[in-house]
């Protein structure tokens, strides 16, 4: 192991260039640690976003050697075999400065996909009895641990081609809700995800599956939505053509 690592870091916003830094190697070092080292010790003007430091919040995703990754949980050893790193902001999102992105469109699409619970009960009611091995619950639970880091969104070529496309995370959340027996919003949800920018836009290229740091399968979820929206359309439940 060389004692240092060569790191090219994106500087600027939409327009900018890579700048190279030399950072000491540590035995246990993540990409976020490398970026932090640069800001603390070499160039205090470097901008990046992070919060939890430990793979819970999804604030620190960046493009590392060409692939979207959560930087706080990406060990340098895993990605910098040749001793070099290239770190850039996530694709498909507007850059604020250097490595920090604006994520509003990503969050807004969660909402546009009706990725929120529609309650059928209130705080005055008891918990529903739902067995953990219930078939639909297992479908919901399979996709529920998304942390909203935007890695799948950056990995998705469809988002790149079609800025309106809701994207893997929003559709994955919609699918977890379709399978949630307690939810009462499926009519509006299936209508929301059935349009041109919804589930049928997905070409199952599986960039999301390949890159999800939580090992979720948005492609599987989207396939489920395709089936359910098709069924709903046959029953005439989707309203217009959107």
């Amino acid at each position: 192991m060389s004692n240092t690592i060569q790191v090219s870091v994106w500087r600027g916003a939409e327009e900018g260039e890579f700048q190279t830094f030399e950072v000491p190697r540590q035995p246990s070092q993540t990409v976020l640690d490398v970026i932090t080292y640069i800001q603390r010790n070499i160039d205090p003007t470097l901008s990046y976003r992070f919060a939890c430091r430990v793979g819970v919040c999804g604030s620190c995703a960046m493009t590392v050697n060409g692939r979207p990754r959560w930087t706080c949980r990406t060990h340098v050893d895993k990605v910098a075999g040749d001793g070099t790193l290239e770190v850039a902001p996530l694709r498909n999102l507007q850059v604020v400065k250097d490595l920090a992105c604006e994520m509003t469109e990503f969050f807004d699409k969660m909402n546009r996909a009706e990725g929120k619970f529609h309650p059928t009960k209130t705080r005055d009611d008891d918990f529903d009895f739902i067995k953990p091995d219930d078939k639909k619950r297992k479908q919901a639970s399979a996709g529920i641990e998304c942390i909203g880091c935007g890695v799948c969104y950056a990995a998705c070529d469809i988002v790149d081609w079609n800025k309106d496309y809701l994207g893997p995370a929003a559709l994955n959340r919609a699918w977890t809700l379709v399978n949630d027996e307690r939810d009462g919003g499926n009519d509006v949800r299936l209508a929301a995800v059935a349009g041109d920018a919804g589930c049928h836009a997905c070409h199952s290229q599986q960039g999301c599956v390949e890159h999800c740091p939580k090992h979720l399968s948005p492609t599987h979820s989207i396939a489920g939505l395709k089936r359910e929206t098709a069924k709903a359309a046959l029953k005439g439940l989707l309203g217009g053509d959107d």
Partner: protein
Amino acid sequence: MSTNIQIEELKTDVLILGSGGAGLFGALHAKAANPELEVTVAVKGLLGKCGCTRMVQGGYNVAIAPGDSTERHFMDTVEGGKWINRQDLAWTLVEQAQVRIRELENELGCYFDRNPDGTVHQKAFAGQTFDRTVHKGDLTGIEIINRLAEQVWARDIKRMEDHRAVALIPSKDGSRIAGVLMIDMRSGAFRLVRASAVLLATGGGPTMYKYHTPSGDKTCDGMAMSLRLGLTLRDMEMVQFHPTGLIAGEDTRITGTIIEEGLRGAGGHLLDGNLERFMHKYDERGERATRDIVSRGMFQEMRNGVTAKHGGLYITMKHLDPSMVKKSFKGMVERCADCGFDLVGGNVEVVPTAHYMMGGVVFEPDCTTEIPGLYAAGEDTGGVHGANRLGGNGVANSTVFGGIAGDTIAKDIKPNATLVDPDREAIDAAVRLCTQPLERPAAKIDQVRTKLWEHMWEDAGIVRDAASLARAKGTLDELDAELDTIGVSGDNLAYNLTWHDWLNLKNLILVSKSVVAAATAREDSRGAHFRADYPDVRDLENSTYTVVRLKDDEITLGTEPVDFSRVKPGETLLDESAA
């Protein structure tokens, strides 16, 4: 840079600082109670992402099972708090948690873990006489915050992300709150947000210690702003240390983050640098002793010097069933693996780590404070937990009181009310405080942070005495003075993290001073506060709590008698047969 810089002014009815359990529940409840109110959530990072509710692993304590009771949860909370809790707050917590957990499950769509028969699973957690912790695996906070955030996104609630609050601004006549001065971190510009009501819900976060668990954005900003406004804070000596944080070496962000308590409960062993167990020397329960005892045992072992590579100790699960460890602690196993540690079959180096501040702003059960228009909830507040917070009472606290704050605000204020004139001198003073480093030549700042970390850890952390606290006081004054000589480049204020590091340190040093002052005043040991020179709990019947205020740039200290409004030490609310 002149202090006559342009400050953009915005107006809203309700301004909420913070987007954890307290902030988001505050926003949802205020909006639900009165949809005409304009509600704005301002947050230092991204909404629902920064802060600590999201990081909750353990779960949510709530007395909803047959055989459990409000009284039992209350007694556990007060006994755990070593009798200095404000009892009306503790009662509100345990009673309203029963409403809030059903709201989370039924109205927001959280799905908490179930038993095989479909009933909600409640697990055992340290310091409690009943298995009452509702959870979602070992990553409960993600479920809670994801569900809250998506409801907020769906409503007409304004978001100001990457906005840090720098000062609570009173009205010109000082009679109430007028708004909050903020920095839009993306541009570096100041913004004054004027509001009829402000909810302080930034979270505490004892990140002034070398090893700490909270989210990296947390730097006691709410408490520092409250001190500067002249508010009273209580119980500031009470800083909880969690026994097992990861330690991965210098300059690693992951150092300090928790690997969860349940590992010890499930039979995990703590080992010294020679791979020998040691906890039995300190408590007959060994590794299963309470957080404070295990943390002190580990601190002593580290002082004795038989440590692992990075100066910590080890936790190991390798004598246990690997499939149980993989299944029960999936999140932790994956986290360790990503960082190069094998939690299932190896020894993982750990260190006690500063976790939670029981102390904070004095507030009422309806979340009002001593300043009209200013409300507080969550870790910014003090009194709910007393000297020690039970694992599982933290997210209950933020969500219960956040919701109450929203309800109270909606009752107290009207939409589009005329806003009071802000105190322009207070705004100028706050701008000067923030911009002063920009007027000096840029210099390195990191050594202030590392010194703060080291000295708070050594002198005002897990074990304290009069001499160490006196040293800490001197060090903090020196560090404050040193920080005031350090400049930050102001050439580009957009997303200027180093400027924010400076502001973070300013806040951490101020709040550290209040921790040290309160710890100096409390000459006994209870809960999280351990004085080597006063190792026993003293005079429980006449318990007092500490209060601090900032006056003329100095921390002033007082003590107040605890009002045992529901139950006195030695008594219980439980029937003797049930106790």
